[in-house]
């Protein structure tokens, strides 16, 4: 589809491009652009500059718009006192593992459900989608009990990255996204591969996956941001200071740390996801809307 500049919306294009409509349009646009910038970037500006202020300057009335005497030391303190390097590394490590596990296991499952269609495939898909209806908070206690004493194996996964990686695989939304994408790959292509003697694995690797790069990208980005934003689950299953994620680490330190240092740490913790978003914003936004709309 071409961009929608041609389709008409609530108010017709003609009405907006001449006479008084035009003036109103540009005035409104200016107000909205300025207002939205203030509402959505303003707090971020306040956060970044606020973390540069000294303790006295923060307590000052009225608050200052620019830090009068910038203290980059707050950021240095946050980095060293909270051991942010370690926390960021942990979070990055969990995020990477989550992407790998999801890509391998969820892609294989979605491929099977879409193209191989074994018996009971639809039942399994139904059971997977049913988990979307169950609020995460309801499962938190039994999930925790399961993780500290895994059924049959009797392993304790506390402080092990598998406690984050494996539950992330049980993500019905991603399987659904992937399956929908695979469904759109023509059956002719699959049968051609079969006639050439390709095994299902080979077909997945050489035909399906190369065609699915966009959706694989979307799933990977979602996995990274989900790990980065998650709070309660990593707080419960990663109790040791050495294994904490960055959000949990900041929370653990917030009580006994000056607030401008906490905010400095929060700024640093937010940088990776913001950068990911600015780079991949197109993929993220399209993934979000395809997943929810066409279902």
């Amino acid at each position, binding site marked *: 589809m071409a961009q929608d500049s041609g389709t008409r919306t609530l108010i017709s294009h003609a009405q907006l491009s001449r006479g008084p409509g035009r003036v109103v349009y540009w005035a409104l*646009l200016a107000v909205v652009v300025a207002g939205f910038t203030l509402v959505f970037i303003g707090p971020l500006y306040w956060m970044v500059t606020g973390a540069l202020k000294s303790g006295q300057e923060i307590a000052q009335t009225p608050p200052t718009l620019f830090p009068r005497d910038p203290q980059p030391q707050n950021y240095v303190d946050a980095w060293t006192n909270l051991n942010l390097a370690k926390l960021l590394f942990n979070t990055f490590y969990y995020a990477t593992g989550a992407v790998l596990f999801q890509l391998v296991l969820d892609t294989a499952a979605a491929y099977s459900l879409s193209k191989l269609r074994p018996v009971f495939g639809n039942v399994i898909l139904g059971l*997977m989608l049913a988990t979307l209806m169950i609020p995460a908070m309801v499962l938190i206690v039994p999930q925790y009990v399961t993780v500290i004493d895994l059924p049959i194996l009797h392993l304790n996964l506390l402080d092990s990255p598998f406690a984050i990686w*494996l539950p992330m695989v049980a993500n019905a939304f991603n399987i659904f996204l992937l399956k929908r994408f695979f469904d759109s790959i023509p059956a002719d292509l699959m049968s051609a591969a079969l006639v050439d003697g390709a095994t299902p694995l080979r077909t997945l690797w050489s035909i399906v996956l190369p065609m699915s790069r966009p959706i694989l990208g979307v799933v990977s980005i979602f996995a990274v941001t989900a790990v980065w934003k998650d709070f309660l689950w990593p707080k419960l299953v990663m109790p040791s200071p050495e294994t904490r994620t960055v959000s949990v680490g900041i929370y653990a330190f917030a009580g006994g740390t000056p607030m401008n240092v906490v905010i400095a740490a*929060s700024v640093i913790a937010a940088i990776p996801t913001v950068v990911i978003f600015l780079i991949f914003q197109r993929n993220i936004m399209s993934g979000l809307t395809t997943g929810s709309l066409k279902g």
Partner: protein
Amino acid sequence: MAITTVPAATGKPGRPRPPYPSGPRRGGLGRKVRDNLTGHAFLIGAVVCFAVFSWYPMVRGVVMSFQRTRRGETTWVGWDNYARIIADPSFWTAWQNTLYFTVLALVLGYAVPFFVAILLNEFRHARGYLRILVYLPVMLPPASALYLFKFYAYDPSDAGLFNAILKAAHLPTSEWMQSPGMTMPAMVLASTWMNMGSAVLIYLAALQNIPGELYEAAELDGAGVWRRIVHVTVPQTRLILALLAMLQIVATMQLFIEPLILANGAGTGDSATSVAYLIYQHGFFQNDLNGAAALGVIMLVVLAGFSAGYLRLTAKQD
């Protein structure tokens, strides 16, 4: 569109069809078994993860809620856990707070994104920029964003950002999280700022699917902007509106991190305690995992009952 000659080969993937269109190689039972085994081999990894971390905990949660584990010994206790949880003085407060938050969040977090989407959809310029702005907070780790609100925006003294703005506008300032009456509105405001981006983008996508002729026709019939919204936009996006309302209610009922960070859990005079926070309290501080599981089951029943009622209501309208 003139592309109508595409063969129907790609068809609709609705009904189950054989693994591959089994051309000349139509095999016997052995082949069928092998194909199925291959299919299940691809599924097994994800199925095990679902079984262990999703399906089994679901059952386990219900079982746990009727048991009590003390010093490693587990006994069946009937409805005791439920009785204990309901007798907790915070139980009803937590439900009241949660419902209040849900309603407030619905008013603010549901209506606002819809109108923002309608507005953004009219602009021919700065579209990408505005979308990025609205979605940016969604990408922040909630803990980071909430510390910003807690320390800088909701500072109860006049040094706080919101109080400074209110003061400059000659409006009365507020103590925010320290005044029980403001706790919930303040949490809703923070939560809406953090989360509304996804709703706006989903609405925008839905708005773009509305055929322009409908607006054209409505305008020819003399309908003004407001009547066009009511009679064209809303009915055309009804399905998405209904779906998002339900998703949002389920999400807001799980309110947890906002009270934990903004109000240190319970808030002034229990004004922030939510049901999810109570689950966390019982399970991980009062060492009462069974009671927490029971509260989880109560929450599930309430949400399921609500969803069923809601579905009936929306189905009737069709």
